[in-house]
């Protein structure tokens, strides 16, 4: 467990020193969302209807944009192969890397969401549901995205391949999360959606790091 904290600390330090790379996905998220009122219609009734979908699709794409950062630089400079020589399971290192990825991408996005909800005329209960859905949903995106990142890190041009591999896996999260926000906006009870999202999170926390660790080993063995 000690090593897990060491990894997270190291990753956060690197992220802090590489702030530009981190701000890009977040800026992308905000800009894409602010383009929709300009492109579709600024009217309240339209935006209220499409708002949850827009925010969630933007979250998926911005996660995808940041996914390549997870292993790329570690692969290029040889840190990744050094990580396989660790006295604690490689799985723990992978989990640490994914956790810190979420801390610097998914979490800021979640914290920013109430502001964007306001921009898209969501009501208070809707904004709360959106916040909760992102809080539970974005870790799933980081976990599943890591599988794609691990498999494509050895390839020169893995960027597009990641999208093809991973976006289909994001679909259940997207469906549940947007349904949860819609229910929230009508002041309905969305506990069921939240529990389902939580179940997906639990499942992917268990399996995704395992698959990712295997993926990295495959990518390194080239």
């Amino acid at each position: 467990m000690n090593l897990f904290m060491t990894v997270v600390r190291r990753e956060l330090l690197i992220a802090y020193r590489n702030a530009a790379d981190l701000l890009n996905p977040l800026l992308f998220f905000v800009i894409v969302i602010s383009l929709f009122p300009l492109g579709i219609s600024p009217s309240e009734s339209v935006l209220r209807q499409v708002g949850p979908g827009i925010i969630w699709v933007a979250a998926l794409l911005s996660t995808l944009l940041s996914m390549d950062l997870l292993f790329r630089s570690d692969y290029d400079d040889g840190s990744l192969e050094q990580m396989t020589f660790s006295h604690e399971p490689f799985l723990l290192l992978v989990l640490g890397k994914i956790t810190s990825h979420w801390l610097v991408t998914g979490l800021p996005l979640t914290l920013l969401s109430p502001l964007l909800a306001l921009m898209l005329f969501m009501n208070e209960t809707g904004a709360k549901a959106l916040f909760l859905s992102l809080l539970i949903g974005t870790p799933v995106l980081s976990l599943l995205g890591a599988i794609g990142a691990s498999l494509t890190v050895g390839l020169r041009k893995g960027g597009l391949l990641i999208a093809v591999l991973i976006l289909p896996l994001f679909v259940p999260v997207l469906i549940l999360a947007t349904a949860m926000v819609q229910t929230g906006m009508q002041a309905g009870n969305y506990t069921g959606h939240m529990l389902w999202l939580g179940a997906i999170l639990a499942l992917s926390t268990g399996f995704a790091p395992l698959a990712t660790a295997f993926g990295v080993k495959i990518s390194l063995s080239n």
Partner: protein
Amino acid sequence: MLNVSQLSCERDHRLLFENLEFSVAPGEVLWIEGSNGAGKTTLLRILSGLYTDYTGQVNWDLPQLPIYLGHKPGVKDLLSARENLNWLASMQQAPVAATAIDAALAKVGLRGFEDVLCGAMSEGQRKRVNLARLYLLDSVAWVLDEPFSAIDVAGIKSLEQRMGEHLDAGGLIILISHQRLALPHAIRSLRLGA
């Protein structure tokens, strides 16, 4: 102690080596030589467990993990020398004291560079940060891929001296190098692609 038997590897439809048999005992050096593209690095990666597409047996009998030094520097540009070494050390075994890290950096000639980001260093200095592990960690086996490249004459000399100490203490070294080692110890040589 390392035992290798019947080791064969084919890559991109080209046979790199076939039925290799060798063993390396404590206090011994295995010097892998061969022309460019003969499969030296692939063999080293097989021995260290990074490359798995081979047939045959590789058996290590070790109390700890080997120290592996690959082609790539293995240090992060955005971390300082001290942070990098601290990370590399704590990953490989229990966390080490800050004074030990500074002492190891001083031994590879990086005194005064502890807080410099590795991205601002020269190729040789980056390599030295990684090589500082050899002074810091107690691992029986060293697996080194061209440890002398990008290192200056004085650095090579002190590295050879450190290798000698390691062998005297019962360690074993497997290395790829294009230059002959100036060591009085038993050097077993393995020529690939001959």
